[in-house]
């Protein structure tokens, strides 16, 4: 691990990711529910969010794939698990239920937390509780 962590870049990356969530409409829970409501009045917008995100990331990922080190000299650190397991399926199922109940996933919840809306604050505290619960029960 390098001494210089480039904290300003990290802050700006968080800010930029937040801007993407704002512009795309992902921060609006009713829009997320409208996207998941495929059997009712369906708002397909969020499919365009994924399309834009995946197109850009795929291109840059494969342009960068052969490089061992990053522009700032960090070594790459990718998820090591390759195989499907029950935890993945169970975790994704529970996450989807929580997402569908209210319309917040972790990124948009944190952006909305910044507006200090009551629901977003409650949600984020509960989310941190859920993560802590996982940490305590998985050891």
């Amino acid at each position: 691990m390098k001494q210089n962590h480039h904290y300003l870049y990290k802050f700006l990356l968080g800010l930029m990711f937040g801007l993407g969530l704002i512009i795309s409409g992902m921060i609006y829970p009713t829009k997320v529910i409208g996207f998941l409501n495929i059997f009712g009045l369906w708002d397909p917008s969020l499919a365009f969010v994924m399309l834009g995100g995946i197109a850009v990331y795929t291109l840059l990922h494969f342009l960068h794939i052969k490089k061992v080190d990053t522009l700032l000299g960090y070594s790459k650190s990718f998820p090591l698990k390759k195989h499907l397991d029950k935890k993945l399926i169970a975790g994704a199922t529970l996450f989807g239920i929580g997402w569908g109940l209210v319309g917040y996933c972790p990124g948009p919840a944190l952006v909305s937390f910044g507006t200090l809306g009551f629901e977003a604050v409650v949600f984020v505290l509960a989310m941190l509780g859920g993560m802590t619960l996982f940490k305590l029960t998985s050891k």
Partner: protein
Amino acid sequence: MEIDWINFTPFASLLGGIILGLASALMLILFGRIMGISGIIGTALDRPKGDTLWRAVFIAGLISSAVIFAPFVDVSRTAPNETNVWLIVLAGLLVGYGTRLGSGCTSGHGICGISRLSARSFVATGVFMTSGILTVVIMQFLL
């Protein structure tokens, strides 16, 4: 199925998606890491030595975005339709626990993982989309 043309925002959503893709790709190109929000928060809770502060700084940037880009935010729409506090707590617990158990959320699996052609991320995204859709269907049926 009926399209909700009034709320449909293909251009803004595509542009937002491109910004998300760029920010995620910069996390890769600059730092060699996956842009996974649940992982960044969840790992910070373990407070690993030398690996915690940047996570807090990143999250601070994410939280500040609604303030710094306030002109672009329609604050009247950031609250969910759901007003039952206990249901919001339940949803938060499920999202927190589920994303850690399933090693990711919409960003890490849905954008980065799918782009990297990770089989785990394809499956996870399919599963959380499906359970999200079923949850919305059931909730609408109950209301």
